[in-house]
């Protein structure tokens, strides 16, 4: 990541699901600085919430003594319209391959009376690219949103 061309925002939260409100407030406060449609910003907040929730529950057992780091990169200065926003969720938990994860249809989820498996489908519908990476013990889920991209938000 070329940090010199991006404005970078960082936040560390603990892995209790009660911290999700803090996650949403942080992402919302960053996005509010830019010239984005409210609806677009709300869906980006939702996608970050979903990935953080997934990491907290499945890679950290909601342990409040463990943490996630959120990093947001924006390619323009505040008050401008970004072309690209990058959201990274970094932690020391086991990596999960969200990229290859086959999302069930909503009809399957209903038929099987499931309450899970919905969030990652939402993330894939909202974000233009998702990448995963593990280096030096740190798992990174990177979500890229192109404003005016192909995803319908």
């Amino acid at each position, binding site marked *: 990541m070329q940090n010199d061309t991006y404005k970078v925002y960082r936040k560390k939260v603990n892995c209790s699901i009660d911290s999700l409100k803090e996650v949403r407030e942080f992402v919302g406060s960053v996005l509010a600085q830019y010239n984005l449609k409210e609806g677009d910003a709300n869906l980006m907040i939702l996608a970050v919430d979903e990935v953080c929730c997934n990491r907290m529950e499945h890679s950290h057992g909601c342990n409040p003594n463990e943490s996630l780091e959120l990093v947001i990169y924006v390619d323009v200065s505040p008050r401008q319209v970004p072309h690209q926003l990058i959201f990274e969720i970094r932690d020391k938990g086991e990596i999960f391959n969200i990229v290859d994860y086959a999302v069930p249809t909503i009809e399957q989820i209903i038929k099987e009376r499931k309450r899970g498996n*919905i969030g990652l489908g939402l993330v894939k519908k909202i974000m233009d690219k998702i990448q995963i990476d593990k280096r030096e013990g740190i798992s990174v889920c990177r979500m890229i949103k192109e404003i005016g991209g192909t995803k319908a938000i």
Partner: protein
Amino acid sequence: MELQITEEQQYYIITVSGDLDASSSVKLDDELTSAVEKGKNVILIDFSGLNYISSPGIGVFTSRLEDCESGKLFLAIYGVSDKVMKVFKLLGLDKLMPILNTKDDAKRHVQSLQKKSKL
């Protein structure tokens, strides 16, 4: 998130306000389970005060839609904001869930389902 319960004739109305996320959805799920256990199977959900919903909140409903299909549960949601509706639409749930505009619409919807189930 806050829940408020009111009963009007046969209708068990749950008013949800605030954020329905992974942390708070358990409370709504427990309330629905408890209502059905008490024999309250005609349930209206008032979402007019709901500010935010994420997948665990949606899961509270997807796990029960088969019970609605089989006539065990009569459920309708009303008062959904544009912001929350956008999430339902993204999943295609706006066509699969009983989402109505007003409380009266929701009552009429449930009444028509009850009539069909008696046929």
